């Protein structure tokens, strides 16, 4: 493998990993805290991208896209809260909650996907890059400035998330709710507020991934479905309910995918990833990095 090809594989792996990590950490957070799997998580990426596009059109394209992204985050937090309220909240205490919420979140996915189609139409759109131009390092590798921003900013966001969850009292209360709801209630933690916050946070992280992605490729309502499936693989590799494991797995899978595509081609790569995923589930369902995991329901 030539140095050139190697660096380009490395770079695309980094960009992919960053996006997966943003998406997967939200998915994992919702799983850990609420104990449900949100199949509407991927479409939130598309919603984030379209909302950013809409805001940038409204405030005028002369403004830097970052402002639109900031406003989009606010919208996404609210949307996340609404989704929790409509799709999940009515079913707490239902003995089939895992299954019923698989269905309601799938319905939410259908709703949002077609909602995007209804609101923004089928015409393809793209977001402007966060920063124009290209970056060349010693003539060894060239990448667009937008990709560089993704590679740098995503880990910063994830580090922020990690610190929030582990060092702030609100973050700790979210983790507490995920580990023992009853004990959390007895400590005076408002469990339903934690749920809403978690969903909002996850939606915001995904929305950011969507806005990044929208500056990279053309947007369409189903742009989130493939990344969702990848995020799912990542969450499994990292171990459900383990944020740092999830983040590590995102980078591992991103690179693995980039290398697999390079060596065995685009066609076999997804099949191999799913096969890996099944094996991980069978032999180590607490994930590659997990020490213990939630096994009930």
């Amino acid at each position: 493998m030539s140095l050139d090809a190697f660096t380009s594989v490395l770079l695309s792996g980094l960009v992919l990993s960053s996006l997966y990590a943003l998406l997967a950490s939200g998915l994992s957070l919702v799983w850990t805290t609420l104990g449900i799997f949100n199949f509407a998580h991927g479409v939130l990426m598309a919603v984030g991208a379209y909302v950013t596009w809409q805001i940038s059109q409204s405030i005028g394209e002369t403004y830097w896209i970052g402002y639109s992204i900031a406003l989009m985050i606010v919208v996404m937090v609210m949307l996340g809260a609404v989704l929790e309220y409509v799709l999940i909240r009515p079913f707490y205490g239902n003995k089939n909650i895992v299954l019923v919420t698989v269905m309601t979140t799938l319905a939410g996915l259908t709703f949002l996907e077609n909602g995007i189609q209804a609101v923004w139409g089928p015409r393809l759109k793209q977001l402007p890059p966060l920063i124009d131009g290209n970056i060349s390092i010693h003539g060894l590798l060239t990448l667009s400035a937008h990709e560089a921003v993704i590679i740098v900013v995503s880990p910063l966001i994830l580090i922020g998330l990690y610190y929030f969850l582990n060092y702030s009292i609100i973050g700790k209360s979210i983790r507490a709710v995920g580990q023992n709801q009853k004990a959390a209630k007895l400590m005076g933690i408002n469990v339903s507020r934690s749920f809403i916050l978690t969903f909002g946070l996850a939606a915001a992280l995904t929305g950011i991934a969507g806005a990044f992605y929208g500056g990279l490729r053309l947007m369409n309502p189903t742009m989130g479905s493939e990344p969702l499936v990848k995020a799912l693989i990542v969450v499994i590799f990292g171990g459900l309910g383990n944020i740092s494991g999830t983040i590590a797995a995102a980078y591992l899978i991103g690179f693995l995918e980039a290398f697999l595509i390079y060596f065995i081609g685009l066609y076999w790569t997804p099949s191999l990833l799913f096969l890996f995923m099944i094996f991980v589930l069978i032999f180590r369902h607490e994930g590659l990095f997990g020490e213990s995991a939630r096994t009930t329901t």
Partner: protein
Amino acid sequence: MSRIKTQATVATICFALLCFLPLFVTDSYIRHLMILAFIFAVVACSWDISLGYAGLFNFGHVAFFGIGVYTTGVLARNYGFDPWLALPAAGVMAGISAIPIAIPVLRLKGIYVVLVTFAFSQLCLQLVLSQSWLTGGSGGLVRIPPLTLFDYNFARDGKFAYYYVALVLLVFTVIALTRFVKTPFGRGILALRDNPDYAAARGINQAAIRVTVLVVSAIPAGLAGGLYCLYFRISAPEVFSFGTATLVLSMLLVGGTSTIYGPVAAAFCIVLFSEYLENFPDLNVYKHLVIAAVIIAILRLAPDGLAGLAKRLTMRLIKDN
């Protein structure tokens, strides 16, 4: 006792009505809708065996349907099999493919079963997409030969013959599955779901039950897939998609799990309702929005599905009289 009797009477009346329907309804579009409903009803009620009765969060059931679609498609189109042979082969193939999926399911529970079965269906999709020499890749297989009987071509009679083939498949599936769950083995399945420790203590073999459940539920789904393929005369990768899974899962949950009849009834309601919405051209893009909203509303208002609702209503009627 009387409830079972009522159920049987209602089922017989419905069956008789459905038998005579094509004689009065000559509109091939209505027949087409009924065929669709029959096929999806088979997939939904066979899913009920693993998801409802056995309580396995099997999310890959649609993959068995897809395997059926492609088995029939590949055999009839690429290898020149008689469609009448390619159809049962779909059931066999789906049943066989349920065995490898049973292995991880044996070791896992809860959400992990959802994930591993979901991964299995995605794996099927990816294999279909990548092996285009066999499956036609993302374009799928087209111009699959239809069912024929001597010189009678099933594809050219205004959906008359396909209607009966699909109806027969549905009726046989419903009868077979309701019988199956009433056998001692079927009761073992329920015991294992409701009280795994007790069932284990009574010597019920968990592994044997789970494998059998998956195989039994996969066969009708595979057959439905085979028929779907011969009826539409295409095999397209969309059968493995989220959309198909959502559609069938909604039939199952809206109908009510562990009832067999519920998902069948819901399959009719959902197919007809979604077609009814087609009558409003203005609604076009909003159609799926409406369906999604209705599904959430039903799950919210009737957590046990239509079957649970019907049960509550009949209970009330009995009480009132």
